[in-house]
């Protein structure tokens, strides 16, 4: 792979002081970890993992609500696999644990699979745990529409979808935000388009490059960010034009707008962020698990977890008072829940690699 080697040389040759860049997509985090890029870029470039792992940012009180639902004998919970291990507010309590104790919790790969489970089990109430960002929202919307149009009345969505922009604005507004540029998530940008990320450069005044997921895609985006930083001219660049258009996927965005409306939403480690979630519109209220099944959300319990600071780049993972008590096997915060989260990586790999 000669391109990646030469791209790395090009990055090292850009005349800028050491910088901190943030990626806000779980798939970027995985791609960077799998290619082992962090040690190759250090010390010139430090890569921080922002709030881009959808299951990790789901707050403990939402997980608690799922756990409570899973105990109902008339309910089958359907979920993406990586939600199953995320802990609620009680240590070690997760859907995986509840399943072992007899709850009917099923792993699905698409929201449409959950509609299918509902068709096959007409006597049960099927709840789909709708987590994810803008990439996941359109398909989730189609599942709700399909249930409505084909009269599947036992399908319910527990909406926990998140919108990236309000979270990034909240992060950037914090006093100790120490990030010099943003690797924008390529697939969220496939939906929102270049237009959906213009605010990063224009309003947040941050250099921003939309990046794909090959090693070279990531390195090219890092290189372009460095050039922007050197010139002191924040702009939005699209380094993933093969999958991202200027106006985005208008069909997908229209579907989301038909079914959902923005609402305030709680993020693990970051607190309540206005307009950062998606709620079902009134037309689809019959499919809203919160309303139809009387889902109650408790107050989020206070925690010593400092993931919010780690995500902002304001605190190194090992300085969190829970570091070591919170472990990849028995995680508390989102940065430890995700296998490649900042805390999990530091815990497993130390500072050495």
């Amino acid at each position, binding site marked *: 792979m000669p391109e990646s080697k030469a791209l790395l040389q090009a990055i090292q040759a850009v005349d800028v002081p050491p910088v901190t860049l943030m990626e806000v997509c779980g798939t970027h985090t995985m791609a960077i970890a799998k290619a082992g890029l962090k040690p*190759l870029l250090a010390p010139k470039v430090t890569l921080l993992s922002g709030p881009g792992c959808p299951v990790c940012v789901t707050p403990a009180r939402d997980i608690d609500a799922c756990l409570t639902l899973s105990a109902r004998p008339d309910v089958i919970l359907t979920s*993406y*696999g990586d939600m199953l291990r995320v802990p609620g507010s009680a240590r070690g309590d997760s859907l995986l644990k509840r399943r072992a104790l007899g709850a009917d919790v099923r*792993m699905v790969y698409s929201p449409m699979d959950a509609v299918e489970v509902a068709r096959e089990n007409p006597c049960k109430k099927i709840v789909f745990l709708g987590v994810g960002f803008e990439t996941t929202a359109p398909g989730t919307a189609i599942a709700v529409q399909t249930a409505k149009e084909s009269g599947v009345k036992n399908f319910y969505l527990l909406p926990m979808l998140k919108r990236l922009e309000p979270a990034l604005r909240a992060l950037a507004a914090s006093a100790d935000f120490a990030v010099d540029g943003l690797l924008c998530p390529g697939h969220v940008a496939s939906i929102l388009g270049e237009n959906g990320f213009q605010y990063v450069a224009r309003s947040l005044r941050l250099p921003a490059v939309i990046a794909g997921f090959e090693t070279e895609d990531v390195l090219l985006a890092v290189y372009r960010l460095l050039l922007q930083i050197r010139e002191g001219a924040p702009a939005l660049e699209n380094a993933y034009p093969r999958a991202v258009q200027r106006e985005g996927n208008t069909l997908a965005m229209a579907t989301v707008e038909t079914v959902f409306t923005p609402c305030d939403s709680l993020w693990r480690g970051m607190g309540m962020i206005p307009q950062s979630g998606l709620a079902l519109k009134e037309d689809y209220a019959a499919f809203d698990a919160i309303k139809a099944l009387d889902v109650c959300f408790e107050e989020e319990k206070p925690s010593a977890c400092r993931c919010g600071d780690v995500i902002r780049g304001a605190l190194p993972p090992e300085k969190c008072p829970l570091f070591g008590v919170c472990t990849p096997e028995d995680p508390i915060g989102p940065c430890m829940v995700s296998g490649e989260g900042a805390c999990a990586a530091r815990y497993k790999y130390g500072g050495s690699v």
Partner: protein
Amino acid sequence: MNDVITMDHGSGGKKSASLVQEIFLPAFANDALNALGDGAVLEGGANLVMSTDSFVIAPRFFPGGDIGKLAVCGTVNDVCMAGGAPKYLSLGMILEEGLPLDELRSVAASIAKAANEANVQIVTGDTKVVERGKGDGLYINTAGIGFLRHPGLSRERMREGDAVIVSGFVGDHGAAVMLARAELGIKSSLCSDCAPLTAMCASLAACGEAVRVLRDPTRGGVATALNEFVEDTPLCIELTEDAIPIRAETQAGCDLLGLDPLYCANEGKLVAVVDKEKAEEALAAIRRAPYGENAAVIGTVSARSPGHVLLLTRAQGTRMLSKLTGAELPRIC
């Protein structure tokens, strides 16, 4: 005979005997088993190697094998990794009421075929039946006994500079079984690598002390097996990503499921740490044997990062491969 397992088949009475007489004896007949004693009296007097394993896989039939073949290969390979030449197997079966007898026959036939290839005899066995809903169709336990053929295999004997060899494509079993699960709706022609490694280990035994340690990287995959070699030692294993044989289809299947081939189970592969002076000889010995034609040297033992397994990536980066934490769950992102 009814065509499904009923509680009567576990009664210890005539129905139980009919299973033995009509299914198991014809499939596995040999002098030790035919005696139908409570235990088997076996020939042999060398140092013995023994291992046991239980098999609960779902689905029971998967591309490239079934629970029966797996139950033979799993235990046979464990005996092989400990340096034994496997000779005898016990076979314990837990059947769920309602299991179709045709399915049991089919599993028995596949056990017989795999045992024959691995050159082991089923010398004692047991069958229990549990009520419907109390088991998942069919569980199997096998224990294996072998005679020590390749003494001294131990991770204690690993040295800096040793070569790390894998005997072929990595991750096929785990990927094939995950893809075969109906709910995923993915169609593939990928097969499990499930196979007995008796002949391969016999071939490797000729390399004697140059072979430091062997392991079959089943659950947790190659990454986890290699971690077990170096953890709590001053040694490190450094792998070269480009050198690791992975089928394009296995990689694509793992990409579709959000898994990593290095953490997917193998059921017909071994990893070996070998004296670097004899690495080519050991590689040739593996390649000569059945199932070894795609073997490759994938890394070396060093002292760079004690207790860790490192992967030198295609981008020339370094990635630490930790042990698998918990079962692999497909990711949404």
